[in-house]
């Protein structure tokens, strides 16, 4: 029994798609449907019965007896259709479906490509949820992450295979409010339940809620880190690059002075913090014999500016962490990924690295540092750390597209490396972005599982269509219309693209974090003593000057 009879195949059919007339209100967008038919097998005239599985990708509803001009006239005259002789009862709904495959003999484990068109006039069925579930999973017994349910079918859960996600990378793409954070939380929660190690790069504190709700994760450890970069021999070049990029506009002689000083600057065996490193660098620059007298002061000045910036960002990060909403959070300095990677990556642990307060370049440098060394640990096959999944929020900032003109972003190289080689060593990436068109195309195309939520920017839509080989034109047309938490999931994690409604983990939602009410804050605002003192001093000074 295939379920409920919901329609009849009409028109021309092909092995890839067909149309059917839908019984009133019996099917919705994204529904999986089934058609029984016979297909030829082998070279003989033999046939075998098979069940064709398809997904509804378009639904058209029309009333052939309601001409457009009549509708216009009704609107202009302010008359209701039912008051006239126009027909209301004969509208029909026609669905277009994408063939997903066929299952000969009702064997759901394997879906084969359909190689013969569906029979015109055949009956179309809406299968019951247990059969749909079997089709979605193929009866495979593997570990799965529960993400939600099919759109319009709350009785059919969507569980994706876990291994392709953690080993072969996943991307979650959606505009702001589309549901990517909800989806990411869902994935993270499921992986925590599986005690899979997670490293979460969190520019805005979106995931700090996991610590707030740590009572829900009794089997896990939630660690909060702030960036604490130490310069070591292994990271000398990276820091040097950061510093060079931050100085901007060094002339050729100045760069030479900088490079020479860099070579000479000593680094302690246990490393130095960046500020100390820059102090030593400045000292070395002072000793440089430049041809022009202005070279050394210029370089020193630039380096002090960089030092100032970095200190300011550090202080900014501190201030953010000391805000009322975060001050109770037990942030720790990030352990050195070279020497203490095992403190960052542990089974059952989610390490959340809060990057707030740092500019893009610095964040990228930090991400590069962390990821580079974690990957090298895994690639060395030393088993120093277990396999891990790295969650990269705002991924377009860390691996931007070449067209963004930020090819020198430090994290690009390592992310590309992880995306291509990570699967061999159990280093996976979960890339999250609300501007896919700003993401590096090559990197994104290496992801094997995608969750795409609402995207309205045409560039983003076109980009996603280009990158995702199994995103059909019909599916991409759905992107602007998705509601919160609704999207398409496709890739190795699922058998075929599905419309999914992600479950919302309401217990992980926290107000106050990333949802500040600034309107209220403005009404309650009182200036601080320091601000009043500054204002008072300024007023008095002006009065004196006027006098």
């Amino acid at each position, binding site marked *: 029994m295939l379920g409920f009879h919901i329609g009849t195949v009409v028109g021309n059919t092909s092995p890839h798609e067909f149309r059917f007339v839908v019984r*009133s209100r019996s099917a919705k967008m994204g529904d999986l449907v089934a058609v029984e038919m016979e297909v030829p097998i082998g070279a003989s005239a033999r046939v075998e019965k098979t069940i064709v599985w398809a997904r509804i990708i378009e639904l058209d509803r029309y009333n052939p007896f309601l*001409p457009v001009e*009549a509708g216009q006239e009704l609107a202009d005259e302010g008359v209701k259709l*039912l*008051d*006239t*002789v*126009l027909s*209301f009862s004969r509208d029909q709904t026609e669905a277009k479906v994408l063939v997903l495959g066929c299952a000969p003999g009702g064997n759901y484990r394997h879906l084969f490509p359909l190689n013969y068109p569906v029979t015109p*006039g055949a009956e179309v069925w809406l299968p019951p949820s247990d059969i749909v579930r079997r089709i979605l999973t193929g009866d495979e017994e593997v570990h799965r992450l529960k993400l939600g349910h099919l759109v319009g079918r709350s009785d059919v859960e969507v569980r994706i295979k876990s291994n392709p996600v953690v080993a072969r990378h996943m991307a979650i793409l959606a505009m702001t409010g589309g549901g990517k954070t909800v989806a990411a939380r869902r994935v993270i929660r499921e992986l925590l339940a599986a005690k899979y190690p997670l490293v979460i790069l969190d520019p805005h504190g979106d995931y700090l809620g996991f610590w707030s709700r740590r009572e829900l994760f009794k089997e896990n450890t939630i660690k909060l880190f702030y960036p604490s970069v130490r310069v070591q021999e292994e990271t000398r070049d990276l820091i040097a690059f950061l510093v060079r990029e931050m100085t901007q506009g060094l002339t050729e002689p100045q760069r030479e002075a900088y490079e020479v000083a860099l070579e000479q600057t000593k680094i302690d065996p246990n490393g130095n913090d960046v500020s100390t490193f820059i102090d030593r660098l400045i000292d070395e620059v002072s000793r440089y014999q430049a041809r022009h007298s202005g070279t050394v002061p210029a370089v020193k000045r630039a380096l002090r500016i960089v030092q100032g910036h970095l200190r300011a960002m550090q202080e900014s990060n501190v201030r953010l962490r000391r805000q009322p909403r975060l001050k109770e959070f037990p942030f720790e300095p990030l352990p050195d990924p070279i020497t203490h990677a095992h403190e960052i990556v542990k089974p059952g642990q989610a390490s959340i690295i809060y990057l707030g307060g740092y500019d893009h370049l610095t964040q990228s440098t930090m991400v590069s540092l962390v990821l580079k060394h974690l990957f090298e640990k895994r690639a060395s096959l030393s088993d120093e750390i277990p396999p891990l999944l790295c969650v990269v929020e705002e991924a377009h900032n860390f691996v931007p597209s070449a067209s963004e003109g930020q090819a020198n972003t430090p994290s690009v190289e390592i992310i590309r490396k992880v995306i291509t080689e990570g699967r061999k060593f159990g280093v996976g990436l979960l890339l999250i972005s609300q501007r896919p068109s700003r993401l590096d195309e090559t990197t994104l195309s290496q992801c094997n599982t995608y969750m795409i939520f609402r995207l309205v920017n045409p560039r983003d839509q076109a980009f996603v269509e280009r990158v995702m080989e199994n995103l059909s034109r019909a599916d991409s047309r759905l992107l602007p219309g998705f509601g919160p938490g609704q999207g398409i999931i496709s890739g190795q994690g699922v058998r075929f693209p599905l419309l999914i409604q992600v479950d919302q983990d309401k217990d992980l939602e926290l107000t106050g974090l990333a949802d500040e009410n600034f309107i209220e804050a403005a009404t309650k605002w009182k200036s601080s003593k320091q601000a009043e003192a500054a204002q008072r001093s300024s007023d008095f000074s002006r009065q004196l000057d006027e006098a």
Partner: protein
Amino acid sequence: MAAGAFKLLVVLNAAACLGRDVSVQRVQSKSQITLSERPLRSVNSASDVSIRYRSGDGRLNLDDKARLIVHETGRSLLVTEPLSKELMARGSDSGLLFLHLEQANGLIRIIAHFSEEDALEAFSARRPDLRLASYDLPPVYSTEIEPSTLRDGMDTDSVYQALLGFIQSEDPKLFTTHTEVFLRAPHLIVPLLSHLASLSAEDNLRFPIQLRRLSDQFRSILEMGDASIRIHKIERNHLEMWADAERKQYAFLDGGVAKIAGLPGAEPTAMRIGVYCVRAGDQDVKTREEWLLAPFVVGDIIDKNTGVHMDDDDQIDLRRLGEAARYTLELLSALEFVKSHRNLEALFLHGPLVNSFVMYDEGEPHFIPYLKEDFLAQFGITAAAIEDALSDIPRSRDGRGRMSRQFMAVYGYLLAQMAVSSVPLVGVVERSAGSWLAQAVLRSAVDAQIIKQDYRAKVMTLLKRYNISDDFLFGCVLEEGEYLTPVTIAKNEKRRAREIWQPVVAQFSPPFATVLKTTETSFPFRVEMNRAGSDNQANVMRALYHTARLLPRYAFPVGLDIVDKYAKVPDWLSKNISARMAARVLNRTIAEGDARLVAQVRRLLAHTPRDFFYRPKVD
């Protein structure tokens, strides 16, 4: 001077015209209005001139006895007694007199419009770009503006168009702007051109003017107080209409035909009669609408006996048989439907209510057969009932009694039922070929002594000469929302029938017919109704008009459009039911040996499960 067609606008200073002794004398004593003292480029003398104008009392007048005299000196004089009197009556307060002339090969149509100098000056102030003063406007005496394509530096075409627009806006009815709008409608170009192609080259030039003149005249006739056929106006108000129509039921019927590509020697034709019945204002979707689709296979309903001897090479004229079947089945279905729906406001059919049915007899060369007795019995129609309704049904030549089941008799019987039905039965014909209504208007005008018989004959000659049918003529005569008083028309003249059938044809009930113009730019459609419809014409026509206004571009009742789509046999059904398929299926069923099964299969060939009828619908 140039011959052929031209248009010209002459603007006369009426006060100046009456101010000069010579001129006023011409007007007074000779009814001559001087158009110009100098030669006018395109104007020729003409004796066939009609002038339309509005007199001081507001009435529209038509003078079709006017003449135009052009002297050798170039002086042009318009000879018109009524207009001259009007001019005299207005005296020096006449202001300006605009004369719009259209001439084609000796025919001239003039519209004379009285206006004020102030109005022209105000117009000139609004349109300084026209530089009317350079054209001597307002004129000292008279000015002529002829649209010209000559590159002489003067943009007379723009000035002509602008002035024409100005005076038309002052009196649209005088200028019958509705006629102009109709004739200039883009979709009219093709039918107009194809119509012109059927005329001689000379008549091509005259046709537009003749049409306008005839239109003016017909309008005048129809607006006469003592005309029995008058123009009725329906005010468009959907809100009121549908409020009044609440809970009233209307039905729409149409037939579709399919040919099942032939088995040799027996080429059945399938037909479907569709009915869409709707109760306006009923909010319950389940009870609001009723849909019926009745299939027929013609071969199943005919009795091959034709009542006459047929030689081996004689064949039934299948095309005529198909027509006879369609006309009969549609009317039969309509009558059958109203039997069970006595409270219908009206049943509208797509096509004539009464078809021309004089050539569907059993004789040579058509050999149209009878209808089967058991088929008629399904509808309660017996030979006895037919013979009760119609007298003098001829006997068959093979001695089998009266040909009561022959299509002619059956159709006559149905017409009799139609005539007495208490439900208004209304046929709507999209393009009204023929000139039944024009003839009816003229006939009634003669009877009411509005016109003379010789004028009627003259108009009939013109209508024939220019092939002016009712749709073109009344498309020009009527404004939007107007229709004529329904009048009986003779659709079946007995003289056209075979002699033995003439007494029966004479008993064919005629319909009451009218034309309704739905929009400014659409052809009017002919409406035929029975007595019940005629008695209730105001409601019927109002319903028809408003349902047609729901399709303003198509300008046809939307209910008929719906049922037309519903009943139409799609191409795939016609094409796909091929001879081979039909032969194979029939072969098998014939092998079964069950005649009823064979009949059923033949019906099913015209009505498959893929039919729209079986498609899921909103509940």
